[in-house]
């Protein structure tokens, strides 16, 4: 527990965030360049789907991040409810819009891909529906955050909501195994090794690293911004009460 609370001090965290932020940005820029280059030029076109399969290099990492961000939010919410860690709130709140954006990106890219491949923009398939529910959960979380004047209450209420909504994450993950869906089952991470050829797997993994680095970068920016905004607020209050 001592380690967890070491960074409860915002000043110490701000210093660390200042170090992480440029590195995350560098990793993001490097891997998105390499990843997109590989996705467009070195990875082969799919023998059935042709060039349109390349949208996978954005779609799959975005969908992973959508679930990853919600998991981060739920864990951070649990930490903030149990240990009252001051940064857990801030990180959960900062993660929500990023996760919502990734969820939307994965739905949008999937829909663009679905039109030529499945012949429809949208099907009410278990995977698609549960991801749509995830988007609603993100929106509900953000709405609840904004609905209170008291920030401590907003943080607590939305932390409980994030934990309740977490039931949806395993449903999304296993929806393709439990139900017979139009969406293809997991192929990258599964028992008995990946069923994707290395020439496609590598750009996918590099894109996944790029998305993760992007997340870390934006998270640092948002958390620093929020902590600084808090400081400004406290200084203003001091000014008002003092003078």
């Amino acid at each position, binding site marked *: 527990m001592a380690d967890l609370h070491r960074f409860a001090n915002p000043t110490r965290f701000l210093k660390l965030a200042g170090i992480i932020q440029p590195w995350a940005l560098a990793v993001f820029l490097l891997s998105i360049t390499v990843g997109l280059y590989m996705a467009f030029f070195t990875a082969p076109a799919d023998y059935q789907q042709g060039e349109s399969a390349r949208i996978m290099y954005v779609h799959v990492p975005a969908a992973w991040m959508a679930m990853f961000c919600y998991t981060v939010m739920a864990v951070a919410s649990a930490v903030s409810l149990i240990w009252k860690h001051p940064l857990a709130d801030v990180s959960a709140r900062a993660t929500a819009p990023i996760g919502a954006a990734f969820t939307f990106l994965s739905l949008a890219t999937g829909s663009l891909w679905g039109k030529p491949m499945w012949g429809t923009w949208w099907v009410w398939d278990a995977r698609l529906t549960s991801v749509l529910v995830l988007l609603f959960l993100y929106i509900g979380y953000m709405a609840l955050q904004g*609905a209170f004047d*008291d920030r401590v209450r907003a943080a*607590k*209420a939305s932390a*409980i*909501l994030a934990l309740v*909504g977490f039931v949806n994450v395993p449903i999304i993950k296993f929806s393709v195994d439990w139900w017979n869906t139009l969406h293809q089952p997991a192929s990258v991470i599964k028992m008995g090794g990946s069923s994707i050829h290395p020439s496609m797997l590598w750009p996918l993994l590099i894109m996944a690293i790029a998305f993760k680095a992007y997340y870390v970068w934006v998270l640092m920016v948002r958390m620093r911004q929020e902590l600084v905004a808090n400081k400004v607020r406290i200084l203003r209050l001091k000014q008002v009460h003092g003078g």
Partner: protein
Amino acid sequence: MKQFVFLVRRDLNLAFRQGMDSLLVVVFFIIAVVLFPFGVGPEPGTLARIAAGVIWVAALLSTMLSLERLFQIDYDDGSLELLALSSLPLEVTVLAKVTAHWITSGLPLIVAAPVLAVLMQMDSDGFMVLIVALLLGTPSLSLIGAIGAALILGSRRGGVLLSLLVLPLYIPVLIFGVSAVDGAIGGYEFKAQLLILGGFFIGTLALAPWAGAGGLRQALE
């Protein structure tokens, strides 16, 4: 247990003394369903096809409408704080209030549902299953809703916010509720869906009071 029963009776008394209030939920339920024949046309085949879905969606919406009152009145007049201070665990208090809520808003829906099923030209094979599915499903709706109702206490725009929080969580109940009825009408197996609905009920019965009590605690701080 005695306190639990007392609390349920208190809430029921309050609801009945207000007369029309709890009846309004059923009226909304009926009107919402009756709108559909005007919307999609009175053709019996079409109505019969969508009957189960429409009744379930209307049941979801009317349960949700009544949720705002679940804790709000007690929160406003301060009796919620007294309930929290009593020797009864807050989880049991939540369970008692949910029970009263289900009796005043879930049960009337179940009574009204067969009449609406007739109006919607639903095949008579589906009636029993519809009632059983609603019996198993509506308690879950009240239980899940209690979490949302506790979370929005003291917020701005409570009602609209509540729908955004609760409706996504209602989707599983809707899916299995409708597919049980459609299965029975189509002559397929429907026991599995009913068992899943029962499973949801037991799961939410075990977990929702904790989350709801957590929500109330942070609201009362």
